């Protein structure tokens, strides 16, 4: 009996490992394309999201998008020189709060999505590259296409996004000035408090969401 169980378990585990390995091997541009397509299809089909359910949308972002982001890298980059001054405990809280804020912002951006088309640009990188930019363009009638560039790094757990540039505006660079200014004024603890307050205020007013 024991052997059967161990064989079954072993088989399952092997299966997981293989699946995991495959996920890691996905090229960054393929990964971006797959995730984008999947999420857009999901929100187009989901009745709750289409009727404006914010919690469901956040759930989708957390489940499908979040695993492909490296939030500690993003936070470190956004903190700039102040990152080294934070204690490990502060770092942990910073990453957590920044992640929450980004997930909410991302969900809002998705809520505004209305049938724009995506143009996935071919990746221009060498196979040995460990830091690439994946270019996607959002096509909308009567306007210049909006480029979205994902900066991605290769990690042990597959390709992870560490910055997003929308129309040439880097999210991380934009937060860096804000974080720097806040730390200068009220210190790292103050920044964490500000982030917490911001997240709480967003949580309190989800009904402002309009499809």
């Amino acid at each position, binding site marked *: 009996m024991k052997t059967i169980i161990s064989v079954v378990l072993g088989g399952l585990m092997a299966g997981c490992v293989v699946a995991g390995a495959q996920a890691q091997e996905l090229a960054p541009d393929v990964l971006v394309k797959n995730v984008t397509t999947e999420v857009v299809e999901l929100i187009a089909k989901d009745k709750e999201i289409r009727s404006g359910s914010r919690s469901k949308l956040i759930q989708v972002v957390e489940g499908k998008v979040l695993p492909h982001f490296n939030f500690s890298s993003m936070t470190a*980059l956004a903190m700039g020189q102040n990152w080294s001054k934070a204690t490990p405990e502060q770092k942990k809280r910073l990453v957590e709060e920044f992640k929450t804020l980004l997930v*909410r*912002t991302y969900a809002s951006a998705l809520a505004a999505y209305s049938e724009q088309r995506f143009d996935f640009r071919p990746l221009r990188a060498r196979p040995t590259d460990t830091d690439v930019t994946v270019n996607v363009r959002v096509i909308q009638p*009567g306007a210049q296409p909006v480029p979205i560039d994902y900066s991605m790094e290769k990690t042990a757990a597959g390709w992870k996004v560490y910055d997003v540039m929308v129309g040439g505006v880097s999210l991380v660079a934009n937060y860096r000035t804000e974080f720097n200014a806040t730390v200068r004024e009220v210190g790292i603890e103050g920044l964490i408090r500000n982030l917490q307050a911001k997240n709480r205020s967003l949580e309190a007013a989800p009904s402002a969401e309009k499809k």
Partner: protein
Amino acid sequence: MKLPRAPWTLLRVLSLLLALAGGCATTEDRDPRDPLEPLNRAVFRFNEVLDDAVTKPVATAYRDLLHEQIRGRIRNFFANLGDLWIGVNDVLQGKFFDGFEDGMRFVFNSTFGIFGLHDVASDMGIEKRDEDFGQTLGRWGVGDGPYIVLPILSSSTLRDTAGWGVDIFVGDPVNAFRPIELRNSAYAVRLVNRRADLLDASRILDQAALDKYVFQRDAYLQRRRSQIYDGNAPREPRQRDEEDAPAKEPAKEPAKEPARPPAEEAPAKPR
């Protein structure tokens, strides 16, 4: 390429005024790109109040009352009028083929697209571009100058304010609309249509920013830099560009380069 004399004089006068205004303020820990921050913040607050009280409600009503189809036609109409000046700016920046395409867009959309109501050129694969005289000045090597928040128009820089003046008085066909009432109505509709298109974006900005003034300023400056380079701005140096820097090492503050035009011809466009 050399600028005609008049804009330079205008720039000098403006920069002198701004220098005077900046001199009155204290300068502790201020962002070097934004020496006028106290003044700018005051104008920013004024704009916010005005937007909340008038522009945003009007734009929201406009969006809710008019079907997207109709709003799209209005957007296309003004976008088509804009393509001529966009073409001129492409030519001024030495991008002759782009300028030619912008001109073709205008011809196709004005005829087959019925006065620009339909963007047939995009369907034909001639993409819309976005150029203005501020970008042309940037391409010619004029730096941003101090960041300026203009009343109603919001984010700008010294260079872009000068560029905007040229856009409005030289490059805007709506300016030639007569009678004056028609011109003013066209201005109003264009403004409201534009604000309506930005409703989602401004809501996201409200959510994302800890300090909306700083967030909007940085986004504007980054965006303009990207536009001047047509989306191919050289990557600012960052931690990851250094050889094999471990991921957890403190990130370095990137050197803030002023937007400079590319040394030679612009790199190939990603399309």
